[in-house]
């Protein structure tokens, strides 16, 4: 039980750290994604599923751009998180997952509200 509690605490802490990291650039990734969605003429439902792959790649490219700029110009910012034991790759993977969840979660919510 205590092991499970410890693992949950650790996971919660990691999520919070990823959130703190993600907050630095969330605006940019969402601006790109929602901009892409508007340019694709606000697809929802089946039309959205058809474009799922394109949105995934758009997100991946925007993360690539962020990674490049952070790696080139503000690499020292990683140290705050590395001091907590997190590798840069883990932070980016976590932030990517969170970003996907928020974007597609937002789209699912819009879809649900429209069909309500």
């Amino acid at each position: 039980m205590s092991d499970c509690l410890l693992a949950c605490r650790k996971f919660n802490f990691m999520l919070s750290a990823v959130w703190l990291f993600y907050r630095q650039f969330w605006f940019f990734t969402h601006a790109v994604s929602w901009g892409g969605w508007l340019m694709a003429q606000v697809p929802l439902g089946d039309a959205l599923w058809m474009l799922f792959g394109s949105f995934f790649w758009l997100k991946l490219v925007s993360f690539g751009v962020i990674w490049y700029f952070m790696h080139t110009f503000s690499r020292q910012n990683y140290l705050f998180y590395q001091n907590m034991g997190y590798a840069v790759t883990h932070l980016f993977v976590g932030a990517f997952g969170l970003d996907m969840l928020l974007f597609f979660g937002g789209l699912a919510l819009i879809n649900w509200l429209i069909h309500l």
Partner: protein
Amino acid sequence: MKFFKSLEADSIELAYGERKILQSIYLQIPLGEVTAILGRNGCGKSSLLQIIFGTLKPVFKSVRWDGRFVEFPYREHHLVRYLPQHPLTPPALRVKDAFKWYDSAVDDSFGERWEGVKNKRFGALSGGERRFWETLLILFSPVQYVLLDEPFSHLSPIYVEELKWLITSQKAQKGILITDHLYREVLEISDQTYFLQNGRTYLLPDPLRDLMDRGYIPE
């Protein structure tokens, strides 16, 4: 939690293109002592600290904790933390939140000063204040080793004195590696001193005399 009594770093080779920065390093950092590294600008002190921390990949390295090789020490639970030369914390982060993230505890002796600063964001502090609280953030961390890269920079003399006292008081529980150009301050608190020159480390038996002989300080 396993306690490591000693950290050893050797066989480190770091090169940028043809230029070799580090090539013949030996450092031993015992728990309970302050170990200093001095050296001229650009001699590789910061790189060496980052290699020990595990965030800079050299050509070769051997960083051992009680004889056990650890490739990424920063990922080990409660083992080591590193204060870089530049600001560490996100400017928008509040001081108390950073201490909470790092599980660092400020003792009661800071009383009113802590109350006055804890709700401020790091970006709102002066350069010296920020440096001071970031150094405490690392120094008071629940880890066994701390690596301090120029902790005295931007600090006023009163802060330098206080920090020297705090480093000395923390060494009972930690192994502390420090580098700074305020060599008098560093020598006052260090138990052993290494000098880094031409990519090699030299343990200085008589630090002041040896630093003069090696041309680091004037005669």
